[in-house]
């Protein structure tokens, strides 16, 4: 009987973080199966072979380095500046995963000190992070947090030795080739321009009034559902665009308009084409779409 292949050695290192991605990862229903093929040398919560203190005494080689949180050169873990710790671990690993929007682009934490905080490869849209010389072995999984299945997908691809096709921000196309708008249950309301006035309703599109970023945001939230059941837009709250380097935007829950026309067109759609279609669609009143789906008072 062939012996089991050796488990991949993984180090999970945290920069400036809220632990959101750590918690998100624990929601992966297939976590147990995944742990059959990887072993954590260090993880902030899961069982692992080394504490952080032990890890920095003699930095080990690894197969995957997962970095969660934003980067700041002088931010310390167990007395070692991130500038030293991250670059040393990065040079001793085969694959690096920037997990979450902070590790990817700077995210929420960058707002505190925009000059000094960034992602590990990108600083917002600019590729000038500390690991830019290692770009080829870095995969970004932006998101606030990243979906657990996005991480397990990348790990499984690495375990299987398969090539991961990436976009301009080195995000897997398989996961970020779509827009959050794709698969949204409200697409019919978007088509016919029937808006939702409030959060939490089953009906109406959240784009016109609620600031939904779905038509600009790359991500598979409406394809690979959260907790396997839902997504922000399905639950009735707008997408906040958390996978993009522009996150966090201001005034998240209102749509910026100029004379009733959205300031930003859905990605790649020319303004004239959009306005011609939207104007036509608004001319019709589709009774079915203007009614409640389930009317408690009926």
């Amino acid at each position, binding site marked *: 009987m062939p012996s089991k292949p050796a488990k991949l050695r993984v180090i999970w290192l945290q920069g400036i973080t809220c632990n959101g991605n750590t918690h998100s990862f624990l929601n992966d229903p297939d976590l147990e199966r995944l742990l059959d093929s990887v072993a954590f040398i260090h993880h902030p919560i899961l069982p692992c072979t080394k504490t952080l203190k032990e890890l920095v005494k003699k930095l080990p080689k690894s197969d995957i380095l997962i970095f969660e949180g934003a980067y700041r050169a002088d931010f310390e873990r167990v007395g070692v500046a991130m500038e030293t710790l991250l670059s040393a671990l990065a040079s001793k690993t085969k694959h690096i995963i920037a997990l979450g929007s902070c590790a990817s682009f700077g995210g929420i934490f960058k707002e505190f000190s925009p000059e000094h905080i960034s992602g590990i490869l990108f600083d917002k849209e600019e590729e000038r992070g500390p690991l830019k010389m290692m770009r080829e072995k870095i995969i970004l999984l932006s998101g606030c947090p990243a979906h657990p299945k996005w991480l397990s997908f990348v790990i499984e691809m690495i375990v299987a030795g398969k090539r991961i096709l990436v976009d301009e921000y080195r995000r897997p196309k398989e996961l970020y080739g779509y827009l959050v708008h794709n698969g949204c249950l409200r697409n019919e309301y978007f088509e016919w321009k029937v808006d939702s006035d409030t959060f939490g309703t089953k009906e109406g599109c959240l784009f016109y009034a609620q600031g939904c970023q779905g038509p600009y945001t790359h991500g598979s939230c409406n394809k690979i559902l959260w907790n396997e059941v839902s997504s922000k837009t399905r639950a009735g709250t707008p997408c906040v665009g958390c996978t993009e380097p522009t996150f966090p935007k201001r005034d998240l829950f209102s749509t910026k308009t*100029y*004379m009733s026309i959205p300031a930003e067109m859905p990605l790649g759609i020319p303004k004239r084409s959009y*306005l*011609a279609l939207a*104007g*036509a669609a608004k*001319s019709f009143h589709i009774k079915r779409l203007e009614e409640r789906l389930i009317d408690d008072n009926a």
Partner: protein
Amino acid sequence: MARLSKEERKISIMSKALELFSKEGFYQTTMPSIAEKIGMSVGNLYNYFTSKEMLAKDLILYIAEILGEEIRKINESGVGTQEKIEAIVHMYFRIAKDRPETIEYFLRVYLSNREVFQNSCEGMICVSAFVTEMMIFFEEGVRCGELRDQDFFSAFGLFMGYLGGMVFINGENILPKPLGEYEHTIAENIYYALKTR
């Protein structure tokens, strides 16, 4: 003489029909009277347009295209918002003078006989080419800070209602001076009504 293509023939029929519709009104104009004016048989006319309603619909699409194309040129000319308003007013009055049947049709046939258009031209569908360019004009005016942000239709109604009204009363021979002489004041009024405060 070169033989006209079917599309060219259609446009020539539409030009003649436009004259009749705008003079006689929708109901007074009949397919036989259009055919007679063109000098073709009624049967042949139906080869081009399956009904008077379809001809009327194609005419409004045609006019909206003409107006839309003119406003598109102004939108893309790169001038400031006040100059754009001047240019739109000038263009509208020029068309009203040179091709009065176009604006007359819009005001006296399309807007006055909505029941004719309700099945195939709901809402703004048939005037989309024109309305879309006006949307772009307003959107860009607000984006660059020259126009006040407000509901699109409030602004659209002020602009186009004003122009349509002037052309209408000019058609009634009420204006003491030629329409062109009002251009500048009207453009200025529109600009001051819409600009940021």
